[in-house]
């Protein structure tokens, strides 16, 4: 019995030892810890404010914040997709922030009109193609990938992935539900194989000759092509999809202050720090994302990719239409 008592004593000690500091912020992050850690370390070094990070998928964090309600300790929500920020705002989890620094740094295209959330970096959903098998002049916008000429040649990951959901949502808002569904149906017919693996796997499959064109996020490709294995991919080329009607699909990774945040001022300071030139440079160079602050120098490999033509649809739309997009994918059999 003595042992059992001491066991419970230790147990309760461990549970209660959860402590709080006054100068800190609690960060709920859908960005992976190893991507955000260099930034938080720098922030702590500069300001002395401790950053507690908890990482999970955006939707899981969302459920958690929703249920924690008024007692939530979360200060800042960080996501790698605009749709999730929109969803958080839609469920009234966020608060509006007024900050001159953020207003001047971040273009209004990349933030919520009422300042509920702010984009911090951009990713483009681009095409990678095998130079030997695809004529560059035949490539147009996303819409053209549903054409019969690409039958059995297109590689893309599962529709469970938020990047694809946002792309479909973008197509719906651009072309309307009916047209978008026709497009998705054509695209599924053109799949080189059942969707499997992540974005990198699509590029690998492309290099292995399983398909001719892969739809992937820019930073994955840049990362792959900038490593010592780049010779494996030297026959692949990059194309930023655009046609007369639609430009390249861009998604943002962004941040927001939560409604019940206990440390609002520190939270704002943190987001302002993320928009600073120093942090923006890290964004661009640690993970090959395009910074939202345009003057920042981007890595050489991204310069090599060339520039994209941005589409005019606001990132806000992705969240609004994401459920619609998933259902559309189910209907057309996009796994």
């Amino acid at each position, binding site marked *: 019995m003595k042992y059992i008592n001491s066991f419970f004593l230790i147990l309760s000690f461990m549970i209660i030892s959860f402590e709080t500091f006054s100068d800190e912020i609690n960060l709920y992050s859908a960005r*992976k810890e190893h991507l955000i850690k260099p930034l938080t370390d720098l922030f702590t070094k500069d300001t002395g404010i401790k950053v507690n990070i908890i990482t999970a998928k955006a939707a899981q964090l969302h459920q958690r914040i929703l249920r924690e*309600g008024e007692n939530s300790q979360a200060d800042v929500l960080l996501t790698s997709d605009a749709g999730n920020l929109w969803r958080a705002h839609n469920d009234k989890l966020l608060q509006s922030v007024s900050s001159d620094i953020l207003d001047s740094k971040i273009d209004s295209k990349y933030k919520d009109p009422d300042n509920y959330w702010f984009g911090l970096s951009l990713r483009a959903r681009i095409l990678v193609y095998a130079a030997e098998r695809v004529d560059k002049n035949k490539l147009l916008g996303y819409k053209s990938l549903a054409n019969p000429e690409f039958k059995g040649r297109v590689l893309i990951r599962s529709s469970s992935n938020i990047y694809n959901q946002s792309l479909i949502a973008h197509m719906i808002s651009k072309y309307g539900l009916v047209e978008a569904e026709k497009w998705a149906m054509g695209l599924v017919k053109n799949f080189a194989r059942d969707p499997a693996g992540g974005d990198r796997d699509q590029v690998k499959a492309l290099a*292995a000759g399983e398909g001719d064109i892969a739809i992937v996020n820019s930073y994955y490709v840049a990362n792959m092509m900038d490593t010592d294995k780049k010779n494996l991919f030297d026959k692949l080329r990059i194309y930023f999809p655009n046609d007369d009607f639609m430009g390249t699909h861009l998604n943002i990774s962004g941040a927001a202050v939560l409604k019940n945040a206990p440390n609002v001022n520190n939270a704002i300071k943190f987001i302002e720090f993320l928009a600073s030139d120093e942090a923006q440079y890290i964004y661009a160079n640690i993970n090959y994302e395009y910074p939202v602050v345009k003057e920042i120098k981007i890595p050489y490999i991204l310069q090599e990719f060339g520039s994209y033509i941005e589409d005019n649809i606001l990132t806000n739309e992705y969240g609004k239409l994401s459920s619609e997009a998933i259902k559309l994918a189910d209907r057309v059999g996009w796994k």
Partner: protein
Amino acid sequence: MFRSLQNGWVLFAILFSLIVIVPIATVGSFVFINEGDTWLHLKETVLLNYITNSLVIALCVFIFSVIIGTMTAWIISIFNFPCCKYIDWFLILPLAIPSYALCYVYSETFGFNGFFSQMFQWLTNSNSYLVNFYSIEGAIFIFTFSLYPYVYILARQSFISQSASYIEISKISGHNLVKIFFKNSIPYARPAIIGGATLVIMETLADYGVADYLGIDTFTKGIYRTWFNLGDINSAGKLSSILLLTVFFVIFIERTSRRKAKYNKNIRNDRPLIKRNLSGFNAYLAITLCLIPVFLGFLIPLITLISWCFKSISYWDLYSFIKIIFSSFSIAFIAAILCMACAIIIVYGLRVNYKFVSPFARIASMGYSIPGAVAAIGILIPIIWMDNNLNIFFSKYFNYSTGLLLSGSLAALLFAYLIRFLALSIQSVENAFIRVPNSLDNAAKVLGATNKKILKNILIKLNINGICLGILVVFVDILKELPATIILRPYDFSTLAIKAHELAMDERLYEASLPLITIIFVCLCPLFVINKITTKYKREN
């Protein structure tokens, strides 16, 4: 009924079993919510796919792991051949490797520019691939070779405890070894084999990591997708309840098959079986047969991971890595002990009053099959409700805000582990206690021993091996656990599994190898102890 409850053991057994009901009831309550648009949409499009994929995978994994587990267990326990002692131990080792790690290794090495596909292309001088692991077959392969040790361990235990006289009688009756295997050993060990296979099925059905990585639409994946991506908690709840019903059905089958078999009497006083010596070709055959699963489930993945580790070692710094190891290790250990304490009470309650406690214990077993994330949210909802009320209470009467006392701490995580892994502890305690005949309890009672004394001096002492084994199995499983930990952990609390998963999902498999290898080596320690315990047990006999 109330008289039964006056017995403290029965009461506590029921109470502890009921803990598990909390998330089940939370999730189960969604059944009664009306079908919404999303549910109709799922029914029309993907539901059938989820069901067939999950069932096909579970069924195939069941068949293959039973074949592999039983065959190897039988070879090891009935024959004597060179190195058989080591092979006996090797066969458990795949348990140390999480299914998702196996999945990363095989999809990578058999994928583009992977080691095996390069070798195959070089050998055949072609551009094609040997196997596509991003498929249902791939998932079946991975689950089979990472989970068969569950069957192996339990089957071997049962084979070893079989009496020599049974087999000798069969021999005298003119049966050959094959006939003895099917007519004698298998029926005798059936409860153990089915018990192991049930664990395998539950693990398979609850998996998320493998299905997610390989892109297979299974039931669990559907639940995640509906819940988190479509944002429809009700439909996800409905899906979960169907999954729970399936598992309940599996458990029901296991129970009925056991009841028919009626627990095998322990024959401790009998001579143990004298193993038959194998030499020459037969010995090689036995070694080869036993080593195949070891290679596929352990050696190949381990070697691959180690080679990745060397390539990425500079990514890690020592201090933060030790911190992660410490947090992983301590939480797993505490939770494993907690599970075992509850399991012993429940199983003893079963022994005191089987009829009354049994339905509750069966409910407790269902916890194992609740997919991690669903269990986590099934816990999160009531715990946050409790937190909010605690906070209101304390603010009102003591003017002190408790904040998120439970959900912001390790308490929630421990609770989740308890619910997820109690079934595993119960299984091992039950399998251990079964071998002690009830007559021993009765004799002790006649001599005036209390229930506490019987439990302490007879059951626990006689079965200390089985109990340690149970703790270790849970420990290993918690080290590997992912989804519940991700959702419920407090700030700055990270485990090896989480770290590995994050890196792997970011398609940085090489960097993910160090935490995975650490998990594997940490899991090897308890397996080593398991081996020691069993050898000691054999020697004592």
